């Protein structure tokens, strides 16, 4: 870990590391925010994951269920983490680019099933 608290790594490294789901919850306040922005959301919340490296990598994001398609989607909101992605030369990509690339990376990862299961278990 760097002195500024960021864990620096390349996005390509993430695919080799196992993500562990911590918890997922619905968030009524966030749902209200999305609806106020006219996002067609039936429900919304957040999901937290980590990778058991030392120090642990922490990544979280907001999701919403599209009211028409019933699909669970990444919310129009930043993916949040303690990671600073770096390029091939080792330069910081910056917080915004890091969040954006995480968003793109998550599109190739079937997190929705895990989150839906966790939410269903919470309701039971």
């Amino acid at each position, binding site marked *: 870990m760097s002195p500024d608290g960021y864990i620096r790594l390349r996005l390509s490294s993430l695919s080799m590391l196992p993500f562990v789901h911590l918890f997922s919850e619905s968030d009524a306040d*966030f749902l209200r925010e999305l609806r106020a922005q006219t996002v067609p959301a039936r429900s919304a919340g957040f999901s937290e994951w980590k990778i058991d490296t030392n120090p642990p990598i*922490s990544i979280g994001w907001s999701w919403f269920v599209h009211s028409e398609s019933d699909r669970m989607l990444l919310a129009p909101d930043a993916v949040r983490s303690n990671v600073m992605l770096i390029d091939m030369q080792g330069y910081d990509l910056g917080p915004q680019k890091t969040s954006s690339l995480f968003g793109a990376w998550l599109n190739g990862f079937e997190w929705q099933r895990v989150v839906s299961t966790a939410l269903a278990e919470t309701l039971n």
Partner: protein
Amino acid sequence: MDAQALAVADNGCPGFSRAPDAGTNYPLSTLPVSQGRLQRCNGVELTIRLTTMQTIIGKSRELAPSLNDALAQYRHKIFIERLGWPLPVVNGMEVDQFDHSDTLYVMTTEPDGAICGCARLLPTTEPYLLSEIFAHLIPGDMPPRSHDVWELSRFAAATVDPASTIDAACNTRSLLAASVRIAAERGAKRLITVSPLGIERLLHRMGVHAHRAGPPMLADGKPIFACWIEIDDQTLNALGIRPDHQTEEADEETADNLLTSIPSPIAGQAAVQIAKDL
């Protein structure tokens, strides 16, 4: 700084009665009625803003006892009654071991003086909330201890009066801007805070450079995490703080027009701040 600037204004510029009490009253622009720049007043360039909300900054020992009590009562209303946090209570007031004579507070107040926002700042070179209670939120249980890191805690920007017209987003931004500014003036380059997860989303939405220090954990069933707030160009720009730690103006008007229409700075709905541009 502000007291000196007002004294300069008193010497030549109409519309102002007296300087505020030193060390306690820093009105900040949040919902500007009008604002502008006076090019020259007694040879000093001044920036004038009208506000409907005030910000108060000071250490506990600098604030009036009644204000300290009002702050503790406000914190009780928000953190205990409204949010349900299991916090220590003394005579109906929310105080803990980190509230002492040297604790630095930032408050926003309604035009009638009622508190509508609060924040607490502590240097990490002495015991603070994260170091003593929540060190496990930092990997390796190693909370920061540095002269350039301050802790921001008990942050709430919420009105108590249901009839309040204070805009919540403006209140939040003003409170955070004042907190960042005053911490930076005391040498902070970063803030650390223990917060509910929703705060992280709020900070990102505001454009503040904030990032988590480690994975969130559940406390009383609610996820909390340790969050870094970098006091860098990104954060300063997001909060409208110039590198010299003055807040920026949104609009500019001619100073002459402003001076003839400014009411008494302390009375009524408006409070006037004059910041000295050096």
